[in-house]
């Protein structure tokens, strides 16, 4: 029974532990389990092993997740894209309530542009390629809106956003890359 529990726990742990740490970590656990089995009882050692298994899983999963670079880059880019959307909505709301004109006006775009540069700049500080992903999100978003959107957005606004959005993302990325100092991952 004990051997079967250990085999299952080892098998599960081997699935969780990142590859470079797998062999040494499982070896460390086996070595200490043997030491504890000799020093106390086998059941106490097994309890210790299972406690170790449960407590080790979350930090090891986190290590594994952070090693998948594209997951964190996409997550940062997605957050930046949401931030851009919130800023755009707020600026459109402010400019339309101030001038009592249509929600889509050049003033709103002029204000939004540097803010997008700033947001992408910060995103690129966290993940080097986040700016490129944000720019791609913007291109895909505007294209999807143009093809399938039901809202009557002026054509000039769509065309301007098609170029201005990715351009702002590009400038934000370049600003970060041209700064000396520690490189983002």
């Amino acid at each position, binding site marked *: 029974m004990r051997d079967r529990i250990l085999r299952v726990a080892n098998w599960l742990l081997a699935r969780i*532990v*990142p590859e470079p*740490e797998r*062999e*040494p*970590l*499982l*070896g*460390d*656990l*086996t*070595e*200490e389990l*043997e030491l504890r089995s000799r020093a106390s009882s086998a059941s106490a050692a097994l309890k210790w092993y299972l*406690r*170790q298994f449960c*407590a*080790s*899983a*979350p*930090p*090891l999963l*986190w*290590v594994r997740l952070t090693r998948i670079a594209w997951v964190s880059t996409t997550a940062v880019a997605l957050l930046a894209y949401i931030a851009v959307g919130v800023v755009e909505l707020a600026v459109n709301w402010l400019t339309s309530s101030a001038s009592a004109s249509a929600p889509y006006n050049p003033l709103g775009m002029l204000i939004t542009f540097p803010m997008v540069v700033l947001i992408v700049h910060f995103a690129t500080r966290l993940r080097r390629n986040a700016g490129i992903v944000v720019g791609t999100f913007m291109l895909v978003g505007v294209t999807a809106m143009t093809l399938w959107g039901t809202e009557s957005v002026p054509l000039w606004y769509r065309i301007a956003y098609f170029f201005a959005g990715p351009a702002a993302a590009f400038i934000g990325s370049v600003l970060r890359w041209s700064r000396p100092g*520690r490189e983002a991952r």
Partner: protein
Amino acid sequence: MKREDTLGSLEHIVLLAVLRLGADAYGMTVRREIETATRRDISIGAVYATLVRLESKGFVRSQAGAPTAERGGRAKRYFHTTAAGQSALRTTHEAIVKLSGGLKGLRYT
């Protein structure tokens, strides 16, 4: 002082354990050293996650040892501190000493 030069509390403890153990610093011994010194129950997963982070920061380096029978034929991974790691330890220690200096009711033996 750059942010990367200072250590988090677990990083600090793990790096000190690696330094204390010297040539015998590998996952199990580091975990046991921390448990003995701090009476803190720490998981091997947390130790490895911290060692991986320290290695990515350039504060420790690792090398594989030979596989042994008592480990089920698995090799050890030995860790040792780098010059940058020792400098980070000094920086963190100085910060702690400065912050705790002159505090009433806090005495170090």
